[in-house]
């Protein structure tokens, strides 16, 4: 036990600061950067509309299909935007008027002077942003960022030292191979959990940072803490699960591309598999504990939809136990492999 910690401590610096792992930080920070960027653009829009004249929401909502543009102008006054154009060949005159009710922009679309359609859009909507965040988290963060980040960190724990020709120093220390494996796994886990847990905290923080104080307060009093915690936990559990898989892959195989592709494929087709096999997927468990179901655009082609759609979720407790159980299984296989591992720098 003590030895595991000593090994982990010696390894940590390499796990955090290895040049090979630099891109891991980029993956982890990407969502935070996106949401900070989005936040800034929302803020700028808000500032832009802050001084604009508003029309009461009730009045705007009253405009029924068929209302004449002149009537709308008479009731609501001068619009913020007024665009008209002719549609060639079909002899239709189109016109769009935009109003602002203090939080939403409202577009009235006319054909030949009669209202055909009304579109409304909030300047920013916490509900929509939360959905976008959920989508980003499941489709990008868990599937790709944590996945490839764990790949980068864990596969190098043994393979990287084979390439550097320094693995024998570990093998020549008075440490059981299994203990060495666990020590290195702990180092990788600490590094990846900090990096990707941190990435989740930062991006969730960025999501909250630009919300209006009313929205924020409401969310905070309801689910914010709960959601944030589960996001962080699922990112970290992702590191636990993927980490063990890639650690084992680094021991068993020469080429890191192969396990990555196989694993990615496995996780992708998981939705098609019988229920029993689904239990052997890390992603399946991670998606189960994500607090907000991700949105699915109706325009996504059906095949891709099958790939992206989360599997039938299990309860959080089962999911956590599932990841830990899978990890234990994979680590057991890895420990068998590490006992057999030989120093063989020549043919690398």
């Amino acid at each position: 036990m003590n030895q595991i910690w000593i090994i982990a401590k010696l390894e940590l610096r390499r796990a955090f600061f290895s040049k090979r792992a630099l891109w891991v930080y980029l993956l982890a920070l990407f969502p935070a950067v996106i949401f900070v960027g989005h936040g800034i653009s929302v803020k700028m829009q808000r500032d832009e509309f802050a001084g604009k004249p508003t029309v009461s929401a009730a009045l705007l909502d009253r405009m029924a299909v068929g209302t004449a543009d002149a009537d709308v102008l008479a009731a609501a006054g001068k619009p913020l935007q007024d665009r008209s154009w002719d549609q060639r060949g079909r002899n239709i005159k189109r016109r769009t008027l935009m109003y602002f009710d203090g939080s939403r922009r409202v577009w009235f679309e006319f054909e030949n002077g009669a209202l055909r359609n009304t579109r409304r859009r909030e300047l920013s909507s916490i509900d929509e942003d939360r959905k976008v965040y959920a989508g980003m988290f499941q489709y990008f963060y868990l599937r790709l960022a944590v996945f490839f980040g764990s790949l980068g960190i864990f596969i190098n724990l043994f393979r990287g030292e084979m390439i550097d020709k320094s693995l024998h120093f570990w093998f020549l220390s008075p440490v059981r191979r299994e203990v060495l494996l666990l020590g290195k796994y702990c180092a990788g886990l600490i590094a990846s959990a900090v990096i990707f847990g941190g990435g989740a905290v930062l991006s969730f923080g960025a999501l909250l940072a630009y919300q209006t104080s009313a929205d924020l307060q409401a969310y905070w009093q309801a689910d914010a803490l709960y959601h944030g915690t589960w996001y962080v936990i699922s990112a970290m559990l992702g590191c636990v699960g993927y980490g063990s898989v890639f650690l084992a892959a680094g021991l068993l195989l020469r080429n890191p591309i192969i396990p990555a592709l196989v694993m990615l494929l496995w996780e992708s087709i998981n939705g098609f598999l019988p229920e029993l096999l689904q239990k052997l997927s890390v992603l399946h468990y991670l998606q189960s504990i994500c607090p907000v179901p991700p949105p699915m655009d109706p325009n996504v082609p059906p095949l891709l939809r099958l790939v992206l759609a989360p599997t039938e979720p299990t309860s959080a407790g089962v999911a956590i136990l599932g990841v830990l159980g899978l990890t234990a299984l994979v680590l057991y296989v890895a420990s068998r492999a590490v006992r057999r591992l030989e120093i063989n720098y020549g043919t690398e």
Partner: protein
Amino acid sequence: MSDELILFHNVSKFYGDVLGVNKVDLRIPSGITSLVGPNGSGKTTLMNLMSGLVHPGSGSITVRGISPFAPEKLMRILGYATQYDAAPRGVTGFGFVVAGLLLYGYRQAEAERRAALAIETVSLTHAAQRKIAAYSKGMRQRIRLAQAIAHEPAVLVLDEPLNGLDPLVRAETIALFRNYAAQGRHVILSSHVLQEVDVFSDQVILIANGMIVAEGEIRNVRDEIHEHPSQFLLHCQHPARVASMLFDQADVTEVKIDPGGRGVLVMTRQREAFAAAVQRIALNGEEIDGVMPMDENVDALYEYLIGGGK
């Protein structure tokens, strides 16, 4: 008793289909033992086998009663300075030795004390705080030696430890080996050249093509090499006549008519006398088409080992 020996029992190791070592049986007592053989003969393979870095395909190994499959026990009594020249990145010589000692469970202060001592032993104190990456070849060699001796192992395994050392350091290093051996420890080292190690070794093991060619105290091994008979094939028209003439004239151990009908097979310990005899027979009018050494490889090897590896 076997607790004081390093034992190899019928050990073979193949890398894929490349032979590493073949059917090795060894009983190595304590003292300085040198493994001598040309490049690719299997010295490193033997050392890696006894320290568990590679595993035998067949056979068994114990080091003072401990299996190389149990590093947690073996490494407490074994220190191995490999021939791999790599060092962990960005580490100072001192940090490198200290890190190794921490894994032995020493506390930081004790590890630092021992590391400093080991580094002093290899006369590297002046460079201890520099990065290993910036060390010269000989310095890297010595820092690996320092790491191997830092926990004062009972079995010290060193792959080509004298390579690249200047004469002064070399003498100091050899003194260190002697000192270790005098305390009843094992010092196993490897070299390409017998002359380099024969003065201070208690035993030598000659190895070629993955097989142990000779083993024992240095004097006995030398004698064996000198007395090793050479085999020749004499191509001639009348094998029976030539055979009888050879028996009369030269100091040959054994003469046989080649079953393949090519001529006469001869074993001799005195190659010069044999060559002279062949010449005389030819001059007497006997038709001799050629003389071919049959065990050229082994012969060349001995020349090489004794002759200084040129």
